[in-house]
């Protein structure tokens, strides 16, 4: 056990962190398959990937806040929000009416069997990453009210 943990830490701190976005294909709400690496690769544009689920209240609060503010932010920063639902087939059918009901103006993608979540070793949601030129340039793990404003500040620094 001790060895296992020591070993884990040794590996973690001796290697350079990953910064590339894994090339995973996800479906959108219409069932069309979207390649993350190919379809979201506009030069220098910031892509905010926010992992959420219909049963995750802080995730929904975060996306509600971003939705209210994004049009103002877009005047200053070229960015797009991808709201990636990790709902499995129990709750996935709720994604479309919920996002319409809330009038979310995001690109909604479905990580049905959590391939992308696993590839990024995400344990808890909410979890938000910012991607620029296919590289992960910022991670926000969790959400407390007000985090959305810190995210905006960060976006301004990253352009």
């Amino acid at each position, binding site marked *: 056990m001790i060895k296992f943990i020591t070993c884990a830490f040794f590996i973690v701190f001796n290697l350079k962190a990953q910064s590339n976005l894994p090339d995973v294909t996800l479906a959108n709400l219409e069932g*069309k398959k979207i390649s993350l690496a190919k379809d979201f690769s506009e030069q220098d544009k910031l892509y905010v990937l926010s992992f959420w689920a219909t049963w995750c209240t802080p995730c929904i609060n975060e996306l509600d806040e971003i939705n209210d503010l994004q049009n103002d932010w877009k005047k200053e920063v070229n960015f797009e929000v991808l709201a990636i639902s990790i709902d499995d087939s129990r709750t996935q059918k709720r994604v479309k009416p919920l996002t319409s009901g809330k009038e979310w103006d995001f690109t909604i993608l479905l990580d049905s069997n959590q391939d992308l979540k696993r590839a*990024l070793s995400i344990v808890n949601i909410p979890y938000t990453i910012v991607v620029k030129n296919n590289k992960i340039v910022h991670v926000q793990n969790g959400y407390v009210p007000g985090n959305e404003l810190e995210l905006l500040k960060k976006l301004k620094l990253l352009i």
Partner: protein
Amino acid sequence: MKKVVCFIPFLLFYLLSFSQTNAVFSGGFESNAQWYLNDKGLKDEFNNPTAHPDEPIRSNNYLYLNYKYKNWSFGIQGESYEQNALLNMNPEYNGTNVATYFIQYKTEKIDITAGYFYEQFGSGLLLRSWEDRALGINNALRGGRLIFKPLKFITLKSVYGQQRTGYDVADSQIYGQDIEFELKELFKFQTSDLTLGFSYVGRDEKVDLSDQKFNNLTNAFAGRINFTHNSFYASTEMNYKSKDAVVQVNNQVNNRLVKPGSALLINTGYSKKGFGIDATFRRLENMSFFSERGAKGNNFNDKIMNFIPSLTKQQHYNLANIYVYQAQPSVFLADQDLVKAGEIGGQIDIFYDVKKGTALGGKNGMKIAFNASNWNALSGTFYIFNPQDYDTDFFGFGKRYYTDFSVEITKKWNNKWQSAFSYINQYYNKKMVEGTDGVIHTNILAAEATYKFTATKSLRLVGEHMWADYDKKNWACSTAEFNANSKYSIYVTDLYNYGNDLEYQRNHYYNFGGAFRKKTTRIALSYGRQRGGLVCVGGVCRNVPESSGVSLSLNTSF
């Protein structure tokens, strides 16, 4: 072995990541540890205090490493359960070892994986392999998978493998084929979308019974269609599983009852800006599917091949998670009052956004969510003895398992205040769902408010109450959560079963703890009591015993 766990991946990844320029290394580490303590104040139904298990310090640890070079990926996951796995986890999870590994080659047209992989066909009613660490589920397949896109609108998947159980694999072979057509691409639809899919899943498990009345190979087929036109959408999925031994008690595989299984899932909805409605119907008959027949009825979600979640709203309030419906795909013929061959029912969801600037919506708008669900057993003719058999009606509703409806209203008052209010009503037939006794009616009220002091400093208060007329009866619960800033949070919560008929069982289940998070790392420490019962994630549940103690969880990715 421990040395191997450490050094093979280390050497491999270390050397490779420095020898290649455009190679990418990534991974993650997660540890959930618990120190179980004796608790004289926490009594069970027989008035015994809670005692810690023989090995009081336990932990589940996972280290995942991934290395990518051009079109190639290599991955490995080591797991360590020391001194043992957390309480009521699959006993097969024991010690430290390499758990999964894979090598993958991927281009736009082709994707080949050898080793352990995760896969889901359609909604997963025939095949889903996935990982859920909180539930102790990892039913990855070990073998090979080929995903091939011969044309832009066709995706073909072929899988073969043996299913993971503990650090080993199950004693059977699994075969799978899936094809999906995205017809929008083919017909150049402008405002519509149409996808079609077909699957085959085979499970070959040798059973040595004299005069065996079923084949070792069970074949299962499914067809699905998904249609969207502007704001309207509909989908359906049909599944059929060939005749097979019906296992009613764990490890009892015999010729007594040999039946096919089927599932029908229909979903439709309409959504536009500010409004969404969604309705689902599902009928299941004899649809439990395990990589080893005898595994049916095990308590650890071990060797499950398909994913049959309960289609009810996943509530986030504590008290709404005491009586949780669990899907009923299985056959169980106990006596005339307790016969099950599956389930039939549905649920409906409505989401509505009250516009800003209206009388009800105020300055910041208001969000309303409504959900209702109802699930019954299948009706039909059931023969308990000589010989055991049944004949179900296709659209017949038998005894009721579960009903609930709930309303949730969220309102942001201004930049400082936000509040939410929920009402939930449940009917839970414990006898039919769990095979024990009684029917419980509940009414649950929950209210919460969040106040923001400064940019990221906030306080959240939650109050909940449940009125229940049977079993453990009434409960009250309160929670306070303080976010000092975006790095530190602390919370305290207490569930109080004040209405219990047994005085010594009027337990407080208190918990307090804190969390720290920075970049990709999160560390949480807490002390308190765990309520015994079901812990459910995504409609799949694990039974946990009452316990008391300190827990530490740590996770990071890199």
